């Protein structure tokens, strides 16, 4: 046990002290936060930029509609009346005005019959201006048209007919009590958890494989296994790397939280409404229960795959030869991830059921199903199967490992490796 502790400690420190670990740990959260915040920041910057304010002149031939167009931080509107009964020559007007105006909007007299408004400019007209005009004028035009029919209360009738269907989902518990749940939040939450599992297992599985191969190419391994058993060395590696992963994960959560907090404040509350809504939606799911299950599945899935990476890593001499074994493992993970995505559509269908019980896919697929509620019997079966298989895989990998680490200079086929199990 003391030796295992020493190996875990060395494994942990050797990775954590690497520069690449520090870079990954601090850079990734910053990149994630930036990706989330850049759209907000850009919008805000756009709205703030007073220097780019544009002067727009509206020539309103109807003489009644232009007042509907309100000034915005981006555009200042000046309304002119068009000459009665005469078509406006926008270009002449523009030449006279010189550079003081950026665009001219012409609202023709017959706009009610033929709903068309034209914007003239020497530059490309900004989409924001077009959108703003459309928003402001459409309602006014609709209102004016409705009024033109002279039917009393017509506007009210039309408003009343505007139906937007809302579909609510209500889930009964065993006693038939109603539990309203937010389907979207459940879906997103489950997907995030399954993606974390996927990412973590692939990243750290590859790390274990490299560490095994490194020891082999270094020729240190024979010295080490003359002091401890190959099993201790393998488990020390698996556990040490798991602790590295947990450290990195905890740091990410902290850093993302801190950076979000700081930038969130400086952005001035942009997005906090959104986050609040998400938090509220998540709290409608049984979060403690799901997180406990997540940890259970996560550890089981990690042990299962990490031991495979370690076992097959011991069968190769160089990192460049490792892909023949790592690719199939990653393929299984990918299948599990896609199965998880597919199961979001129908979390209680038979595919979701089977994939959440089969040990190789269950750590990922079950995460998607959990927020929708899973019968206890299925959950228990799936966990027992997962841990049973993980134990079997550790046994299996340990046998490959103890032979593989001492064999040099030859590539081994899967068939040969299975012979080592004896």
């Amino acid at each position, binding site marked *: 046990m003391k030796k295992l502790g020493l190996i875990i400690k060395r494994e942990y420190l*050797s990775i954590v002290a690497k520069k690449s670990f520090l870079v990954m740990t601090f850079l990734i959260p910053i990149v994630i936060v930036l990706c989330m915040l850049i759209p907000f920041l850009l919008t805000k910057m756009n709205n703030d930029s007073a220097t780019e304010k544009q002067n727009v002149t509206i020539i309103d031939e109807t003489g009644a509609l232009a007042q509907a167009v309100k000034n915005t931080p981006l555009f200042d509107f000046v309304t002119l009346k068009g000459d009665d009964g005469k078509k406006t020559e926008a270009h002449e007007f523009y030449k006279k005005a010189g550079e003081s105006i950026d665009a001219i909007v012409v609202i023709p007299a017959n706009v009610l019959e033929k709903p068309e408004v034209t914007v003239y400019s020497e530059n490309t007209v900004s989409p924001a201006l077009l959108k703003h005009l459309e928003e402001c004028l459409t309602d006014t035009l609709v209102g004016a048209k409705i009024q033109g029919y002279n039917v009393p209360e017509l506007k009210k009738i039309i408003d009343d007919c505007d139906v937007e269907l809302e579909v609510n989902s209500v889930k009964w518990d065993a006693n038939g009590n109603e539990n309203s749940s937010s389907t979207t939040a459940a879906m997103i939450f489950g997907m995030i958890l399954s993606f974390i599992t996927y990412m973590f297992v692939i990243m750290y599985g590859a790390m274990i494989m490299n560490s095994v191969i490194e020891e082999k190419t*270094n020729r240190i391994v024979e010295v080490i296994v*003359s*002091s401890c058993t190959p099993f201790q060395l393998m488990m020390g590696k698996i556990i040490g790397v798991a602790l590295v992963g947990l450290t990195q994960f905890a740091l990410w959560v902290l850093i993302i939280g801190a950076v979000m907090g700081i930038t969130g404040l400086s952005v001035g509350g942009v997005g906090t409404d959104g986050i609040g809504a998400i938090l509220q939606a998540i709290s409608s799911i049984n979060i403690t229960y799901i997180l406990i299950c997540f940890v259970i599945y996560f550890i089981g899935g990690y042990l299962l795959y990490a031991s495979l990476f370690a076992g097959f890593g011991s069968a190769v001499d160089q990192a460049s030869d490792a892909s023949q074994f790592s690719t199939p493992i990653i393929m299984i993970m990918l299948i599990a991830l896609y199965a998880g995505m597919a199961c979001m559509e129908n979390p209680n269908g038979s595919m979701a059921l089977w994939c959440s019980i089969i040990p190789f896919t269950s750590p990922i697929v079950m995460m998607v199903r959990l927020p929708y509620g899973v019968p206890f019997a299925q959950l228990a079966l799936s966990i027992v199967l997962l841990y049973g298989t993980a134990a079997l895989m550790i046994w299996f990998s340990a046998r490959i490992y103890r032979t593989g680490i*001492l064999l040099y200079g030859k590539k081994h086929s899967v068939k*040969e490796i299975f012979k080592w199990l004896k």
Partner: protein
Amino acid sequence: MNFIEIKDVVKQYDGHLALDHVSMDVPEGIIYGLLGPNGAGKTSLIRIINMITKPDSGEVMLGGKPLQPEDVAQIGYLPEERGLYKKMKVGDHIVYLARLKGLDKATAKKRTYEWLKRFDLTQWENKKVEALSKGMQQKVQFIATVIHEPRLLIFDEPFSGFDPVNAEQLKQEILRLKEMGATILFSTHNMESVEAVCERITLINSARVVLEGRVDEIKQTHKKNLYEIEQVQCREPLPACENLYSIEKETGHSTLIRLNEGVASRDVITWLNEHVELAGFHELLPSMNEIFIETVKKLNK
């Protein structure tokens, strides 16, 4: 008393027999040579003594008792394929390996410093292993092998890759450890080093023990009655005497003769004294290298 007793050990790998009923006794406190060509089974046997692998059948006793997992603390092993973690600091690395062998932290640190001082490596203590030259790395490996003061030391091809100066230093250290009471098992196919340090040897060929015993006795039993004769008048040819010896080879200043079966060297000296003026008369014992090659060749026929 025998410190290691290997009884009838068999080990098979994937249809290939690596050790075929091998038995070997290593007395306590001597340097013992385990010899054999490449692929003979030396490393397989050493791995079994180190408990890295288990024998298919047979038994290994250490100090009169069957090997126990705790015995690794009593064994120091320098494998042929040896290396270090490149990114670890020299001091930390030695301490880590020492603690894996069961030393506590304080003792491990103290002894690491003492050994680094001994090998003049103290200024490298906080450098990474990759910064060391190959010779220095091998010294670090040696320190890691002996730091827990094991009673049994196993060196697999210890001198491979060492320059002559470092090889000599290593040899002196090994002899010093023997003086301090350690039993040393020396696996090699480098026969010169065997003659220099080993008292007893076992020769393994194709998974079987083919020769075993004290080095001087083996030499006696394998001698071919060859003597080297030097004369004061070195240009004169040696007179022939078919009753006593045959002349094998004549060189500028000496002659190689083979004594006939049953002839005592004393009689030859008497006869020669009457005929020539002798300057030297030595018995030529075969080198271990010759015995090794001869034995292996004879078996492979």
